[in-house]
């Protein structure tokens, strides 16, 4: 056939890179991001146990801990200092770490599941449900031990309702897509949160004498943290963390969209249910012992995302560690800035967190990542 005007030869293989060119695809750089995060956590924990109304020196801390580890050289420690360390400071720091890790991990997970940067662990009604549960106990003068149980139950109930209603909502996904879209669940969450908050506000207004207690709970606190709180929360948070971390790669697949994820062999609806269930149990347990601490679930994952990696395999574990460190530090500020009074933890996380977060957002890396 005669050469056509304007025809050019078929693209030659040599036009493109030789297939033998060595391309290295490195595994995700988890360790490089974990090291500074762990250092931050250790430093925050040390500060957390040292600082307070009675100051414990780092040397005292060392001798207190070393005294319980065989073969380590140590000196005898003042029993009062030891008691402050073991019974007051340490459980509080540990609880702050558990709650912070759970809120940050839950936030990162929901941002992935709902592919929405504004999602936080309270998105589906955990806060409103927990708030209503706690308020019912407080205004009815129920025993203090019942409060976490009621908050936990309320939180789980609210999310279960949200999920059940959102799942059955009629919603045209515009393509006969197999499975369900996210939007109805998020909208059901908005409705359920409004309903529970309305009930909570009504109860609160009817019982003005307890309003300060209710507000204190809502704004979050770790004032009465004890080892029993730790043992109550820890199992839930461990289960939740294991599930979330195990799903990290699937969350990465979800980043290209539910439909494409499903053509890659993922079941988005099942993944969503699993992650919502795990995150809800963990977050509800955290809320039950600490109240409603806001902002951690948004600011920590985004800060980690902007400074390390957007891959959930890095983002989830690092967010949990940084969230733990962040809440320990926030709690230090909460109990020292106005000592002997305590500032509500939720107030601190927002006042300390917001300026820092704005600073991170304005960094060059963030501008690139968000462009």
């Amino acid at each position, binding site marked *: 056939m005669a050469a056509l005007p304007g025809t050019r030869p078929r693209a030659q293989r040599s036009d493109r*890179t030789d297939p033998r060119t060595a391309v290295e695809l490195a595994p995700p750089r988890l360790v490089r991001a974990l090291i500074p995060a762990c250092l931050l956590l250790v430093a925050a924990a040390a500060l957390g146990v040292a600082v307070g109304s009675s100051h414990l020196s780092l040397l005292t801390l060392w001798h207190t801990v070393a005294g319980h580890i065989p073969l380590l050289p140590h000196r005898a420690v003042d029993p009062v200092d030891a008691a402050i360390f073991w019974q007051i400071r340490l459980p509080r720091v540990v609880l702050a770490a558990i709650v912070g890790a759970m809120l940050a991990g839950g936030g990162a997970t929901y941002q992935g599941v709902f592919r929405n940067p504004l999602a936080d662990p309270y998105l589906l009604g955990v806060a409103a449900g927990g708030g209503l549960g706690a308020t019912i106990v407080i205004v009815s003068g129920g025993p203090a031990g019942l409060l976490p149980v009621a908050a936990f139950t309320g939180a789980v109930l609210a999310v279960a309702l949200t999920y059940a209603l959102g799942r059955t909502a009629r919603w045209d996904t515009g393509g006969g897509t197999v499975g369900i879209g996210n939007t109805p669940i998020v909208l059901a969450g908005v409705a359920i949160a409004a309903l529970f908050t309305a009930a909570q506000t009504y109860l609160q207004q009817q019982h003005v004498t307890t309003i300060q207690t209710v507000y204190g709970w809502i704004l979050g606190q770790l004032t009465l943290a004890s080892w029993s709180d730790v043992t109550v929360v820890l199992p839930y948070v461990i289960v939740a963390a294991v599930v979330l971390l195990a799903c990290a790669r699937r969350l990465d697949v979800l980043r290209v969209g539910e439909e494409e994820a499903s053509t890659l062999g993922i079941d988005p609806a099942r993944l969503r249910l699993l992650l919502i269930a795990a995150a809800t149990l963990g977050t509800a347990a955290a809320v039950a012992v600490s109240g409603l601490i806001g902002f951690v679930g948004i600011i920590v994952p985004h800060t980690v995302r902007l400074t390390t990696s957007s891959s959930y395999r890095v983002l989830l574990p690092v967010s949990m560690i940084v969230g733990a460190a962040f809440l320990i530090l926030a709690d230090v500020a909460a109990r020292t800035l106005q000592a002997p009074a305590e500032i509500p933890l939720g107030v601190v996380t927002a006042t300390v967190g917001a300026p820092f977060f704005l600073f991170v957002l304005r960094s060059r890396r963030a501008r690139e990542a968000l462009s």
Partner: protein
Amino acid sequence: MIDIRKLTVRLGARPVVQDVTFSVAAQRWLALVGPNGAGKTTLVRALAGLVDFGGSVRIDDRESRAMSRRDLARSVAYVPQQPGFPADMTVGDYVLLGRTPHLRPLRSETASDRRVCADLLGRLGFAHLAGRRLATLSGGERQRLVLARALAQQAPVLLLDEPTSALDLGRRIDALELIDELRVERGLTVVTVVHDLTLAAQFADTLALLHHGRLVTQGAPADVLRDEVLSDTYDATVRVVDDHGQLVVTSRRWNCWATEDAQ
């Protein structure tokens, strides 16, 4: 190979694809053509397992309905019209997503998964770009990259919904040429939705013309691309011109040719 029997898809109560029957031989290229709303995309989505359908779809003699998502993803790779490109994901991570159906539960990619993807990146011209963020890629690069991800699935069937819609004239030919090379190189069976009939005629072995959800005709390009068939289906004045053995489909304003002929 793909064998489709009496495929019917309803969206709500409305049948969008009706009683479509055809097959695509192994390592061949079939282009689905037809006007907007003919059901091309829906048909491809049914093949990808994204919509419920009636009838039967067999891929390499296995009923696709009976396959798990994972199994299907190892047999069929699908590229939608507008793939998702997370702006801050890297080129390397994006291609590795294609290995998802091959991973053992709860496991990450192995060294061999990474090698498969690294080879593909090299083959498709991303040798030194594995660390680049997707936001920085051009339209042509994105098109090649999504192809790399689909090929990482190592599925024998490749479904592409309008692979060239975002590309300019020259890049369209490049993209289709690349798909054709890869088809031969890897023995792929390719099904594409193509709007440009002239391009479809150049690359596909078979065209299947859909209209109102039904298969109007299928066959070699020269058999499908006929003036009266296209004019009817597209409700336009269409003429197929033979340009040195190459079919070129042109469309004109109404009655243009009628006036010329009358003179």
